[in-house]
Every structure is written in structure tokens, then in C-alpha cells.
């Protein structure tokens, strides 16, 4: 139980590129912070969210109004540090309470230089983004935006066409776990994916985003994993070629989120920037084969173009899952190769665990492949 340093904070605001701005109070260090302003509807799991590399370069608006209640724990980082460019909340808790809480959210973000603006009408901001789309924004101190800041905002980079995977990825490869080897491409990999792969029974070698197909094959993996990550999948063109090459060797491949989009692109599909994306832990996704509904964690601003009948431009891909809210593509499978991917996050963290079985599905695919290889050799 601690007081955070910031008190009630100084006047600040969130300015959007369309000129709308939202008043609040700045807590901690660091403004101004530029980034794409997106909202997430997760009720819990702010620590996981802020450390999720997929949020790299984004200012995250929490629609849940009370944030920071349970502090920051030692066990819930999804990467080494907060990845977000800024955080916007309705009310930042001044005191936290939880048996695992070790420090306050405000202190933790301040230490990482991430600005947090509180006391914002986050619902108004959310509705604004919902109606006009996610857009660039800035968190800055002051009672209202200046012209200079507006100009600075318009000059900041846009998410479209941005390869952030190469920024988010690991610089060096590392290995964890026991079992058949899976090479996991890190485009901004969440730690819980590695933990889940490990727990499923894989040895996981995490490699940088730009690792080539040859480098992967040299390691003789039993399967390949394509991670989540930030930015525009269209800009990660090097990965598309690598994925295609690896898939055609017959290796089982499993992709999540950005990995899913890259897979779609690799087989001829296209992606589109969604108006405001899907971010939260309550998205219903239907498994088209069984009709079952999974409540899923989502965090994406781009989507593979397609529908129940397939992915345009990628006749070899079959759509396996659809979002029940808006009909967007949520899961893909190659018709002939042991390759599948999902747009949502089966590793959760934060969010529901309904989609955990995809990891076992991947293990089954890997075992099948190992069995076939054993039989033929």
C-alpha cells in the first residue's frame, strides 16, 4: 500500500489529429507522448496490456474507469517494459491493494517515462474513436493544445505502412522448454505465448523477426510459430516470403494476431486497416466447423480481408473462425498444408482462456508431422 508520487497531477490533455481534444490531469513524467490512440475494453489486466509489444507506439485508452487498483505485480509483464506511448484513464487509483501488488501503476509508468493522463472523459474519447477511427494523438501538459503541438502531431508517423515488428523483436535468439522444437518468430512476442508453448510441451526457440527461412530450417524445427506484434502487416514484407517458404516445406505453422495477418498475406490475401480495431477481452468468435463460440482477447488494428467463403486472393486458405460482432476473419487454415492461425490471442494475458486449446491443436499438428516423418524415414 503506497501513495504514488504524482498527487492529483497537472492539467493536461489528449489531442487527436482531427483536432478534438480531451482534458485531464497528467501524472508522472514524460509528456508529450505521440502515438496512435486506441481503446481497449479489458476490465482487468492493465499491466499485461501496457507491456504487450503489440501496443508499441500506441496511446491506450482504458474504457474501464478505475485503473491501478491492484498495483503492479512481479508476474504479469508481457515483455521487459511498458510498450505504450501513453495511457489515458478516467480515474487512476491513488492506492492499490492486492497480495501480489508490489508497486503502484503510476510509479511504474513514471519510471518507464510513459505519460498517464487521468480524469479524462474516456467514454467520450472512446465514442469519438469508434465513430471516426483510431488516429494519431498526443498526450501533453497544459490547459489546451497549442498550434505548435498540432503541427507536431500532424508530422508524427502514421500507423499505416509502419513496420514496428522489427523494432519490437528480440535482437538475439533464446530457447526455453522441453519437447519438440518450435521456432517462434518474434514480431513483438508476448511472454505468455512462450509460456503457453512451453507448457504445451515444446522447446521454443525465439528468433528475431528478420530471421530467414534458411536460418530456421538449419535448426531442424518440428514446427514454426508466428507471433503477435505491432504495426502494419503489409510493411513486414520480408516475413511474408519467409513464411511462404517455410510453409511449403510442410512444417506445421501456427500464427497469432500479426502472425495470422502475415500468413494471410503470404498466401496471396490482403489486409486492411480497420476503423478502430478490436481491443478487449470479450470478443465472440465462432468456430465455423463446430458452431462453438469462444470469448477471446483481441488486440489488432488490421484484419485479413475475407469472409465465411474464404480469403480473397488466397484460394488455398480456408476461413475457420469469424468475429460474431462484425463478421471479420478471425481464423485461417491452409487447405493442404498443416498451417493455421488465429487473429485473436489464445494465450490471453489479459483475458479469457477459451482459446487455450489452439496450443494443443498445434502440438497435435506437430506430432502428426513427426509421426509421418518417422513413418517415411
Amino acid at each position, binding site marked *: *500500500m503506497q501513495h504514488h508520487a504524482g498527487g492529483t497531477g497537472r492539467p493536461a490533455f489528449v489531442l487527436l489529429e482531427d483536432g478534438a481534444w*480531451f*482534458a485531464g490531469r497528467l501524472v508522472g513524467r514524460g509528456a508529450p507522448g505521440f502515438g496512435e490512440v486506441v*481503446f481497449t*475494453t*479489458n*476490465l*482487468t*489486466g492493465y*499491466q*499485461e496490456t501496457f507491456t504487450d509489444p503489440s501496443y508499441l507506439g500506441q496511446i491506450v485508452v482504458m*474504457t*474501464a*474507469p*478505475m485503473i491501478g*487498483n*491492484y498495483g503492479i*505485480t512481479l*508476474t*504479469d509483464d508481457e515483455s521487459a517494459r511498458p510498450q505504450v506511448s501513453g495511457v489515458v484513464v*478516467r*480515474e487512476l*487509483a*491513488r*492506492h*492499490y*491493494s*492486492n*497480495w*501480489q501488488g508490489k508497486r503502484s501503476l503510476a510509479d511504474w509508468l513514471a519510471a518507464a517515462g510513459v505519460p498517464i493522463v487521468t*480524469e479524462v*472523459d*474516456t*467514454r*467520450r474519447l*472512446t*465514442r469519438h474513436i*469508434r465513430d471516426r477511427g483510431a488516429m494519431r494523438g498526443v498526450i501533453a501538459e497544459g490547459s489546451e493544445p497549442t498550434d505548435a503541438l498540432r503541427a507536431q502531431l500532424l508530422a508524427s508517423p502514421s500507423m499505416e505502412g509502419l513496420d514496428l515488428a522489427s523494432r519490437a523483436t528480440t535482437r538475439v535468439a533464446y530457447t526455453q522448454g522441453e519437447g519438440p522444437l518450435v521456432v517462434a518468430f518474434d514480431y513483438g512476442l508476448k511472454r505468455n505465448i512462450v509460456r503457453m508453448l512451453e507448457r504445451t510441451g515444446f522447446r521454443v526457440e525465439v528468433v528475431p523477426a528478420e530471421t530467414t527461412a534458411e536460418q530456421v530450417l538449419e535448426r531442424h524445427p518440428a514446427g514454426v510459430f508466428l507471433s503477435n506484434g505491432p504495426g502494419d502487416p503489409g510493411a513486414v514484407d520480408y516475413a511474408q516470403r519467409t513464411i511462404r517458404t517455410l510453409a511449403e516445406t510442410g512444417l506445421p505453422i501456427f500464427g497469432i494476431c500479426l502472425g495470422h495477418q502475415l500468413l494471410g498475406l503470404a498466401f496471396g490475401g490482403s489486409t486492411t486497416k480497420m476503423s478502430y480495431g478490436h481491443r*478487449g*477481452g*470479450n*470478443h*465472440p468468435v*465462432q468456430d465455423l466447423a463446430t*458452431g*462453438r*463460440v469462444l*470469448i477471446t482477447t483481441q488486440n489488432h488494428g488490421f484484419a485479413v480481408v475475407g469472409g465465411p467463403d474464404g480469403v480473397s486472393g488466397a484460394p488455398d486458405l480456408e476461413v475457420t473462425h469469424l468475429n*460474431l*460482432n462484425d463478421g471479420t476473419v478471425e481464423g485461417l487454415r491452409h487447405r493442404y498444408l498443416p498451417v493455421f492461425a488465429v487473429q485473436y490471442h489464445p494465450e*490471453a*494475458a*489479459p*483475458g*479469457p*482462456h477459451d482459446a487455450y486449446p489452439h496450443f494443443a491443436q498445434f502440438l497435435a499438428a506437430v506430432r502428426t508431422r513427426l509421426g509421418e516423418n518417422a513413418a517415411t524415414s
Partner: protein
Amino acid sequence: MPKRTDISSILIIGSGPIIIGQGAEFDYSGTQAVRALKEEGYRVILVNSNPATIMTDPELADRTYIEPVTPEWVAKVIERERPDALLPTMGGQTALNVAMALVRDGTLEMYGVELIGANERAIRIAEDRAEFAQAMDRIGLATPAGSVVGSIEAGLAAVERTGYPSILRPSYTLGGTGGGIAYNREEFEALLKHGLDLSPVHSVLVERSIIGWKEFELEVMRDSADNVVIVCSIENVDPMGVHTGDSITVAPAMTLTDREYQKMRDASIRIIREVGVAAGGCNIQFAVDPATGEQLVIEMNPRVSRSSALASKATGFPIARIGAKVAVGYTLAELPNDITRTTPASFEPVLDYVVVKIPRFAFEKFPTAEPFLTTQMKSVGEAMAIGRTFKEALQKGFRGLEAGRAGWVIGAGPIDDRLSDVDRATLLSAIRRPTPERLFQIKRALIAGVSVDDLHDASRIDPWFLHQLAELVAMEDEWIAFRYGEDAAADRAMLLRFKRAGFSDWQLGDLKQLDEAHIRAGRHRLGLRPVYKTVDTCAGEFPSSTPYLYSCWDEENEAAPDGRPTVIILGSGPNRIGQGVEFDYCCVRATLAFRELGYRTVMVNSNPETVSTDFDISDVLYFEPLTLEHVLEIVHVEQPIGVVVQLGGQTPLGLAKALAAAGVPIMGTSPDSIDIAEDRRQFEALVRKLGIRQPANGTADTVAGALEAAERIGYPVLVRPSYVLGGRAMRIVYDAEELRGFFDEAARVAPGHPVLIDSFLEDAFEADVDAICDGENVVIGGVMQHIEDAGIHSGDSACVLPPYLITEAQVEQMREHTRAFAKALGVVGLINAQYAIKDGVVYCLEVNPRASRTIPFVSKTTGVPLAGLAAAVMVGKKLTELGLTDDPLQPYVAVKEAVFPFAKFPGVDTRLGPEMRSTGEVMGIADSFGMAFAKAQASADGALPLSGSVFVTVNDHDKPTVVPIARRFHELGFRILATSGTQRYLRARGIPAEPVLKVYEGRPNGIDLMVSGQVHLLVNTPLGKLTQRDDYAMRRAALQHGVPYTTTMSAAAAACDAIIALKSRRLEVCSLQEWHALAREAAKA
């Protein structure tokens, strides 16, 4: 999967009368279920004995049976209607228990009725403590160590292992009835015995105490395709040890990490699958060790519950409605989210606001009951509030409670917060043992400088909540120190910050000794008004087309009046004794009527249990406290043609004058007329002018004045405060000494108003008249004769429509008087008048130009929807236009009986009096008085015996009256037992009564006979001061051992009539629709 076509008719069982632990929430869920299944084209048959509900309105189900919700009577309905399926999950524990009994006795099998929603196995596992623990064990989930015992010996052995304090939970009881916490062996034995007695299967779970652990609930839905969603998480501010119905609760959970929450979510999904709720909702409770995060499963309800009503209102996800749809085969993905209308129901709502629920208690009605909160529920209602933050919602919640607090504020004196003193030791010791006032005690402690750590040690309330409270206390200091009114910009910033923390104008004014109106005027000058945000299930992610709104002090306003003429209906706030579901019924009926007439309707209410706060009843719903400030701001936004105050009971009525003074148009009867009826002096003038007789009366502001008035009037006198509902602090006073003792209590209830003193008409008949007036014509809805004698509150008295012991001439006189009152008061809407008839003379007791508690009963009996018609006359329709010209007649008899919470309050006398103490009511309808009364008794859980022993013990005054009654019982074959005086008196008159010892005379005495099951009916009237304890013990024993009892001669006579009817006739059930057809025929003829 689409809906099932192999079933076409479905029986829904309601929950019966409103009792503690089973309240209006089941009217809400039942109503939703009926509507949901009707719109799918099923033939819906409903059984519920509670006439005050919306669900029993004949327009709703295809066949509505107001019959006892007991296996015997429901079987009759099944026999007659032959439904294909039975949905048992909408009517609380009552419906589940009846359904299980019908499974066990083979009725369902015999008539080929399928249980849908939850099957027998699921209900059994969830309800049976031992089976549930085993089931949890199978899926690797922990429950508190404990064992189910069926005897005292086994219980003592069990507690050896689990230790003290020990939690006891009887199987198959609702609201934790009979449960409790024992701190030592003595308490344990007493509680265990009580619990075993109350459990219908004589088993009690003896559990390791996890008092002080954090408590959570999840609301879970599953469809037949095995899709599961969590609708809502709820965190209890009061940790384990206080029943969740008595806890202040918050949604969503505030202090769980995602990891902890997902663990709970995973467990919930495994539980609903293992228990096997095939298609429907359930509620699962968890305890979490605050030190280690260890999670235990406490219990699961395989049905819609109080919490699911709360969760529905908190999230906008209509659990009962969706539960009904999945029960007939739909999958969640096939059903739309009714709020967004663009997304499916297979999702989990997310909240961008905080919901706080605060229970409302009625300990003031039971002064001898212990006010401690335990695992047995004792609250009678609740208020829910929505805010953007916990602080805002909490403060709104305390206002919504309508307990005279402007927010989270301490009482005027320590006594108001149930404290004898305010020193640190007294405070901490009080806080250690939870009472309804605990949060006020904590506030006093914070003000006194007690640390959050110390408060956490004493209360075990999570420090997060305590810090929130401490921040509010700190803010108050800031406000007090602030130099308000010196700098507009500073005022504005300061006010906005405080409004955002939930402070009301009233509260801010009080803190600075300023008037509420002064703060409000200043705030308006600064342009500070609340905005309204939408409860949309999705935190703004998708557009929503349903205006379900709450106020807050953010920037964007989502309220969108559309220019259509708008009517605001003020609801009745949290349920309480004296103001319950019957007023919600009136508000809902009127709202629907306004809508039909083309008006845009706006409902304002704070009660999550009700139908009125369902988002599809009105065009717009404001979930707000019913205080002047909140209502005025809504009026400002909505600019209505008028506000309806006459339908929601005392709550809106109390606002009428202030609203009118603020220039708000009031619909129907003017506030001035309402005031004339309330104001003793004005009313007396009116009565005199109309030439109507009134009991001799007076008013007094002082004890001396009261004594003088009573002397003039003559004892006994009826003493009561002005402006109260439900007979609060109302008493019959027999002498000056008693008056001296009681005066202060009465005076304190309505400060600033005189105490009313009336001559008490002993042995008079009383009657209630409900009528409607359009300003010109009056139609009498019904004249109801009370069965209990004068002196018992009308809400507590059984009554019969039409009257059975009053002459036609007297009935006509009451009708005439009521017409005269309605016209003289210029009533536009409803009016209720109460009369007493003594020695052939009709006296007027009181007149209320507003909806009464009996409106739904009269409407259900006659088929005339009085509340809806009242709405029509309020917008200028004439009764003739509405086709209502003649007073309705009915060629049958309806009896209303009251239901009491005495079983929940050990130590409370069950003797009835002028202060209302019933929580609910039931109705019996039949072609004779005896049968209607018998049905009402069966519904009120006092099923009358057909044979056995009647134990008669009455005072001298009643001895002559009891003779014919005793004779009839004797002739019916009953053994007559009587205490010495009564026995000799009866013997002397030829009735072979057998003697029974009074308690002080030795043993075995009357109580022993009751305990050992040798008494089947107790006829008791108070014997006088000497034997008061005896009487009291006797009545408590009857209550505890389920012996039906009457405490008045008229009720005893009625019971006799009823037993004759039961013995001589076949039991028959008949739907309201059929009864009303009879009434229409009678009217034609």
C-alpha cells in the same frame, strides 16, 4: 440451434410473496421470462400467488394462475393445463423446491412435463451441500472444509474438526435462512438445532470459517451448445461473514488482477458444466484469501437470483430473458444483444462505469431483534447506483437508499449510526461486528483519525475500499476549508471536482451550513450540470440504440430527448416494509399505458430488483436516486409535459411539493390536494364540510399536549407521526403512562410535524376503498373488508373483496364518501380511503389521493387495470371515453393475506399491531370466502390443518367470541386444547376442551405440545400483561415449529370457514383470465 418445436406450452412458476431473501427480483425475472417465451409463440402458463407483481397481470401470460406455489396446487395447474415443459429457474428457491417436489412425487413424469433450464440432477447437486462439495472435488476445485450433518451429535463431531467460529448453512433454504455464525459451543448447538429444523431435508453444512476473506460472485450463462459466458463479476465490500444480500457490493470486481479473475472465470465455466446447468444462468460465489489469493468455491445457484437481477441492471444484459430463450434451445450466438441490437448475446459485457448496490434494512420495525449482519439475509430491499467511479456510485447509492442521508454522511448523533459513543475503542469494537451502519461508523473512525490499517484489521474490508473512503473524508476537509463564493473560476473547479466524487448539493450545503438550494443555484449560475451516459454493455465500442442512462459529471451528454411529448414517472426506490413491489406495479402499468397513448415515457428509479428498471419498459430509463437534485436535473434535460408522483408510494410523493415549487408540472391530482389529505387540520375541515364522520382526534407537538388530547378523546388512542407510510411508529396507547413513554418516539419520526392522536375504535371492522377519478366522474375499483380487527395495520391485515360481513348499506356509504372525497379533492388519478365501521356507523380513518398498496390486488381481482387507467386520466382522458362507467362487480371472492419476516428475527413478537411489518402479500381467489381464505393461507405458508388439535388460549374479552368458533372446530372433528381459564369457559358451554398447562404452570405445557407436533392450529389472543412472556413464547414456538396460528378472533373464524371449505370440496384451480371473463359476464347481466 433454433428454438425447440417439440414443445408448445410452458409452465413458469413464480416465487410467491415477497419475503426477505426472495424479493421483487423474481417479478423482474419472471416477467422477462414470460415475455421472452410469449414472443417465441409458446403458450405460457404462470403460477404465482403474489398479486402485487407485474408477471401476474392477465395480459402477460396466456393463463395466469394466482394459486398457492406449493407442489399440491401447482400439480392441480399441471393436471388442468398439461404443459409440455416446466421452467423452474425464474421463481427463486420457491420455484426450484416446488419443481423438485413435483419430480420426486412423479407428477411431472405422470403428465409428461419436461424440466427445462435446469434439470433435476443439476438442481440437486447445486442445492445439496454434500453433493456440491463432491462435484467440486471432481473438477479439482476447493470448497471450505466442512461436513454435512443431520443431527446435533454429528454436528458437534464436525465442529471439532473445523473449529470456531463455525459457519452453518442449512440445505435447501433461501437467503441463508437458519444459517449463521457460531463463536462457541452454546451458540453452535442453538444454531444447528434451528438450522436442522428449517432445512426441509434436515441437513446443515458445518463449515470452516473464512470470515474476513474477500467475497466475489460471477453470473454465468450457458446454452445447450455448451457456450458459456460470464455476464458480470461482483465484489462484496463486506467480506465473508455477511450474506451477499446484506453486503454492499460493487460491479465489476475492483481488486482482482486479471490472473485472479480469469482463474475464477475458468472455475465458473467448469462448475456450470459439472453441475450440469444445461441451458440457463447461474450464480457462483467465491471467497479469496486476501493474504495468499487462495480461492474457494462457496456456493452456486442454478437459477436466476437476486444477484442476476443486479447483474442484469448493472450490465444491460437481460439474464432472465436470455435464460428463457436458451432454455427453449437457442444458442447465445443466435440471440441479439437487446441493447446494441447489432451484436449477438454471445459476449461478455464490459462496463465503463462502476455499480454499487447497498441493502436497505428494516430493523427499526423490529427493535428487539439483534441488528447484526450474518450469513442469514435480513435486508428487505436495495438501491443500486451507477457512477463513473466507485466514490461517485457509492455516494449516489447512499442517497438512493432514501434513508435521509445526502450521500455517505454520518448521522446527526452517534445513536443514528448505532453507536453509544465515538471514542476509538467503541468505534473499533462496533466496526468489528457488522451492522447496517458499519460504513458510517467507519467514516466516524476516519474522521477521528483511525488509520486504514486499523480499520482493515477491525472490519476486514479490503484496504482499497477503505482508501477510497479515506479519500472522500480528506476531500470533505478540503471543502470545509475552501473559501466558497469568492472566485467563480475556483468555485467552478472545486464544485466540479466534488460533484465528480459524488457529492450532492445537499451534502455540500450541509458541510458548509448552507442551504441545498443555495449550492444548486450557485452551481447552475456556473453552468454546472450533470451529463448522462449510456449503459450499453460494450463500453462504447458499438453504437447502442437503447437509452438506459445514468448521471455523471463528465463532458459528453448522451441523453437525447426527441421532441415528443414526454412524461416522467418517478418510481418507488428501494423496497422497504410499507413500500414494495405493488408500487412498482403501478408505475409499470402506467408507463405502458402512457406509451400506448403515444407519449414518450421516462422512468426514474434506483431499485435494481424491479420490472420498472428493465430497459425496455419505458422509452428512456434513468437509473438514478430519487432525490430532488437528481430529479430536477433530469427534468431539466427532458423538459417533460409532467411528472407522475402519485404511483410510486411515499418516495415520489415526498418530492411533489418541492418539484411543484421549482415549477415542475405534476401530472394528475395537484400536490395541494395531496397535502390537504395529509394535513390533519385541513383534512378535518374537509371531512366536516362533507358531513362525514371521523373518530375523535387531535394533534400534539408536546407530551403535555398529547396527554390533554388523549384525555379529551378518551383512551385507547391511536398515536402516530405525520407523513409516514407503513404505520411507522404507530401504536395503540391504553393509558397516560404508555403515552408519555411513546410520544418521543413518534415525534422523532417526522420532526417539525405534529403527532396525530385518534380515538381507537375497538372491535370495529375496517375497510379500504380504491377508486379512480378523472376530475368529474369516480369509479370505485373495490371495497375491501379487513379480516383482522381495527388496530392492525391495513398492510398487515388480511382483507377480502367483496366484503363479507359489512352490510350493503354500509358498503354503499363508503362508496359515496369516497366519491365525495375524490371530487372535493379534485382527484385526477387514484384515491384510497380507509374506513372503520363500529356499531353500524361508518367513520373515515384516512384518505390518500394516490396509488395505494392494494391497487394491484383490486386490479387482479376485478380485471380493471386501475394504474393504467390512472395514466390515461392524467393526460386528460375521461373515464367514459375509456369505457369505465360502472363500479366493477365480481361473482367470486378474493382474499389478500400478508406475509411476515418473523422467522428471520429471533426475539421478535409476532403479534400484529398498527405498525406494518409484513414484507409481502398473497392472494387467494375462489367462488367462496372459505376457499379463497384457505388458498391465501396456503400461499402464505400457513396451510391450514384438516384434522388434529386446535389449541385455544384467548383473553377474557375474546372468550364469548371464541365459543362458536371452538364449537365449529369441535364439530369438524378437531380436538380442542385450551389453557385453564379458556378450557373451563368452553367446557361450561358444552365444548369438550382438554386442559393444557400454561408455561409457568409446569410441564408439559402448551409450548411442549407445539414442539412435539401435537398442536395443528393455535388460536391465541394476548392475555394481558402478566402472561405477556407466555403469549410471546407461545407465538414464537408456533412460528418456529410451523404451526399455523391466528392472533385475532376474526382470523380464527375465517380459518374455520376455510377448513370447512377444504374438507367439503375438491381443490380447484382457475386462471385469472377465466375469472375475469366471469366478471365481464356478470357486468353484462
